[in-house]
């Protein structure tokens, strides 16, 4: 049976996030030929609707309201539930982002539905779809299916390939008026700390430092390399505990789990907790002075050497190939 699937799109700094396009691809797969409806909630999101259609949504419903400028679970759940009531979908897909993680359990609870979080792959299509998700931070995986009733999933960024962008695709865009009221939270301040606008969990390239980085200043060459590759910096718990960087950069079983295309581990020994957070990256490079370091066991390429020597050389070399 084909399913009508609703996908929540998410914008960051005025543009849709990649994970939204990946969520559309997931929605297509579970729709089994049914309709895929994009949803955009915000204070000014109308202009982003076309892009969802270009990536595979059949049509888009937008809700615009001043209270939706910044995310709060109260405001977004009211707006989303209004769309749900109008559309009555058989399945819902969110990105497994800060917003998706915060909002999806509330919606699932309102709808008394299951919720399969943090999906990294989908096997089969339509009703036969089975969802793969990491457990124990990627030390193992489970295959989960929805028993019956509404299917609700969140998809991890960077894992499900988006559909090809097609600027010729067209579809309807309709605004839904929702009175967003009774908010219990006020966001009084937002401090942007994330580096260069690239979110760690969504970055295609992650350059991570460990105790071997030795100081907060030691992260500077790593940041330069990350910026050059359009990536983000991360860290091991050792580096965070030593106050070289903020805990928000920590990768591991506590901290973030990342699966970039390229993970460069510099001065990281490779404790089991750290490896759980990054070993499913597509390509791993390890740079460490200690040839016995555990990190070399999961690395595709390893250089035994001093990161303060190797990283600047890498920066020079990459600059060379970029200018050629």
């Amino acid at each position, binding site marked *: 049976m084909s399913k009508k699937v609703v996908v929540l799109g998410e914008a960051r700094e005025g543009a849709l996030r990649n994970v939204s396009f990946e969520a559309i691809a997931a929605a297509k797969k579970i729709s089994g030929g049914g309709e895929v409806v994009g949803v955009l909630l915000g204070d000014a999101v109308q202009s982003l609707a076309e892009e969802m259609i270009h990536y595979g949504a059949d049509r888009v419903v937008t809700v615009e309201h001043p209270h939706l400028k910044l995310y709060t679970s109260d405001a977004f759940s009211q707006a989303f539930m209004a769309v749900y009531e109008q559309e009555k979908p058989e399945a819902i897909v969110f990105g497994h982002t800060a917003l998706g993680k915060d909002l999806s359990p509330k919606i699932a609870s309102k709808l008394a539905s299951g919720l399969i979080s943090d999906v990294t792959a989908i096997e089969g299509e339509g009703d036969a779809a089975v969802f793969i998700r990491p457990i124990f931070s990627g030390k193992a995986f489970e295959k*989960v299916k929805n028993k019956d009733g509404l299917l609700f999933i969140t998809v991890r960024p960077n894992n499900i390939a988006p559909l090809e962008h097609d600027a010729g695709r067209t579809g309807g865009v309709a605004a839904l008026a929702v009175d967003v009221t009774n908010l219990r939270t006020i966001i009084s301040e937002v401090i942007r700390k994330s580096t260069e606008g690239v979110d760690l969990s969504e970055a295609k390239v992650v350059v991570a430092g460990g105790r071997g980085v030795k100081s907060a200043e030691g992260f500077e060459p790593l940041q330069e390399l990350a910026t050059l590759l359009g990536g983000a910096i991360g860290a091991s718990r050792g580096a965070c505990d030593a106050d070289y960087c903020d805990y928000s950069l920590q990768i591991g079983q506590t901290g973030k789990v990342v699966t970039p295309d390229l993970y460069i581990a510099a001065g990281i020994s490779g404790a089991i907790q750290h490896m759980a957070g990054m070993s499913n990256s597509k390509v791993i490079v390890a740079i460490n002075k200690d040839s016995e370091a555990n990190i070399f066991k999961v690395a595709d390429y390893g250089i035994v050497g001093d990161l303060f020597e190797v990283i600047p050389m890498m920066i020079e070399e990459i600059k060379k190939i970029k200018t050629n």
Partner: protein
Amino acid sequence: MNIYVLVKRTFDTEEKITVSNGKISEDGAEFIINPYDEYAIEEAIQVRDANDGEVTVITIGGEDAEKQLRTALAMGADKAVLIDTEDDLDEMDEFTSAKIIAEYLKDKEVDLILAGNVAIDGGSGQVGPRVAELLGINYVTTITNLEINGTSVKIIRDVEGDSETIETSLPLLVTAQQGLNEPRYPSLPGIMKAKKKPLEKLELDDLDLEEDDVEAKTQTIEIYLPPQKAAGRILEGEVANQVIELVNLLKNEAKVI
């Protein structure tokens, strides 16, 4: 102030995971309080000490989870509740857990509920917000700072590395992010005292719940380990040449730059 903390017993982060008969093998494994729940317990104790009141830790699980509850009591929690589902339920999901916990809490006077933002085993982070929704109270996830003044609450939360300052009020559920505090170790007198603190054991019957009421909405059909990665290449030679080779491999073989 009535403070509740939702805790989960999990594998020690040092443990390697093995699968036997389609299930995660627990043979010889060490168990701990989910690390994010430890932040929640610590914060609950600090809030109680500043405002008076009582901290109750709640878990769902089997008999074995008593050990983690005793640890929480030894840290300084006042009471513990173990909702033992071992005999009643074969399958549970986040819907199940949230429903059971909310059923226990629904007729309690609740000012503040704390939980970890995610459990390091299942990793879905759903139960906290689901419980809040079932109780009809507000929630804030991934918090790194909590200030309570009467019933008004000021929170700093981590949002993908950015930080948001939030103003809200009690009753409230919050989930703890790393950086919220430094969880204390149980002291020896704390461990001695914990043995005498009340630990209530309940089953679904005691909560007037039928198995059907909490039947899981999702089903795990297979658990497996990721394929072992083949050993990688350690480059050799002069460091400068290794770097040239590495960049070349990343560009032409791995095609990631």
